[in-house]
């Protein structure tokens, strides 16, 4: 049977985009501007705003980089829900009017661009790096730590965070409380504390155990709902609270610091594997 391919002309739909505009030197306050553009199947919100910028209104500003959900630059409030513009297809939304606003809880720089300074400062404040009792461990690049797959799985999920700020803009505590660390920073506090290579859990638990730390999370779960990477910040924060509560009740966690693996011995390559080419640089 001959394979026949029917090439249909892609249907075009006209969708109205209501986009929040704001030019701080010029405008009193943010306002909405409407654009009607043709959308075909598969076009993402990012494609649509790029189309508007190229062909309709080149004063529109937005931020994007990888256009494939890795860099976390293109977070927007799409019809009231924080989403990555590059991972949301316009026709999936099933509406004829798409409202785009900059992520809430971040100060607006211009149009759809927001300022992440405070967000990154909070992230930095929880010491998002591996803390070792002996710093020389980390500088010796030939050595590595021993960690079992089970131990790896304790934090793997939380290490997928791309710092896109969607959870931070969805969290209802962050709506009003500017000092609250936010789901992202708290999740990272747990991610590094749950890592067996890390010895800084005591330090980090003291940082998050403050009036605007992890106890201001009341498990609304909005962070988990909007997370584009399946990180589940709500889970991490609850586990963080459990860790602190257990310690306050005197439970000493059974955990050994991951040891350094002994330096590798002379390795013999298998016979039938070809040699790598010589380095070109």
């Amino acid at each position, binding site marked *: 049977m001959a394979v026949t391919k029917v090439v249909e002309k892609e249907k075009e739909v006209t969708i109205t985009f209501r986009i929040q505009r704001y030019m701080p030197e010029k405008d009193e306050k*943010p306002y909405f501007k409407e654009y009607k553009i043709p959308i075909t199947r598969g076009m993402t919100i990012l494609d649509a705003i790029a189309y508007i910028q190229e062909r309709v209104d080149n004063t529109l500003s937005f931020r994007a980089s990888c256009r494939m959900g890795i860099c976390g630059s293109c977070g927007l409030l799409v019809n009231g829900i924080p989403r990555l513009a590059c991972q949301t297809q316009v026709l999936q939304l099933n509406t004829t009017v798409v409202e785009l606003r900059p992520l809430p809880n*971040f100060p607006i720089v211009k149009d759809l661009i927001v300022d992440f300074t405070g967000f990154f400062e909070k992230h930095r404040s929880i010491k998002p790096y591996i803390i070792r009792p002996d710093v020389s461990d980390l500088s010796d690049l030939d050595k590595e730590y021993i960690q079992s797959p089970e131990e790896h799985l304790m934090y793997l*999920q939380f290490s997928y965070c791309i710092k896109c700020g969607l959870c931070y803009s969805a969290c209802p505590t962050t*709506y009003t409380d500017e000092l609250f660390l936010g789901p992202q920073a708290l999740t990272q506090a747990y991610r590094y504390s749950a890592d067996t290579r890390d010895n800084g859990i005591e330090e980090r638990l003291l940082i998050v155990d403050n009036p605007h730390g992890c106890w201001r999370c009341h498990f609304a779960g909005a962070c988990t709902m909007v997370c584009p990477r399946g990180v*589940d910040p*709500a889970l991490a924060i*609850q586990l963080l609270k459990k860790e602190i509560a257990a310690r306050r009740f005197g439970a000493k966690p059974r955990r050994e610091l991951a040891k350094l693996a002994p330096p590798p011995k002379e390795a013999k390559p298998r016979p039938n594997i070809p040699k790598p080419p010589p380095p070109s640089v």
Partner: protein
Amino acid sequence: MAKVREVRNRRGLLGWLNPTKFNLERWAYTLHRVTGFIVAVYFYMHVVVTGFRAGGREVWESIMATLSNPLVHPLELIVWGSLFYHGLNGIRLTLAELGLIVGKPSRPIYPYKPTSLGKTQRAVLFLVMIMAVILIILAGVEMFILPAGGGG
């Protein structure tokens, strides 16, 4: 250069009160805090009102006569409902915050199914909602239907 106004763009209190488009737990969150506030306000009023008994029989009977008002009953039902919901949901929150019903970290594979909003936690949430509704209905029957039936 013109003066630059900073737009903080926080959603604020109104955004906090509005859980539309978000998940069920987000609704439960707003409801939990609103009911908590109602119960706290009622508690202080309750302390003051029940305190009138120390004034003696006349004072107590006059305050009870003031409060035996058909307008007070629906308000009381709101307080009862708030209490039931807040207590039951409080148990769910305690279980969740101590890490008992939120599951364990796992390898996220698309489409992601976060365990903290997963089956166990949702089951507890639905149980809480159903029990709260049943208790509110019972309280309503006790408050409005039984006295009207002539039981007195």
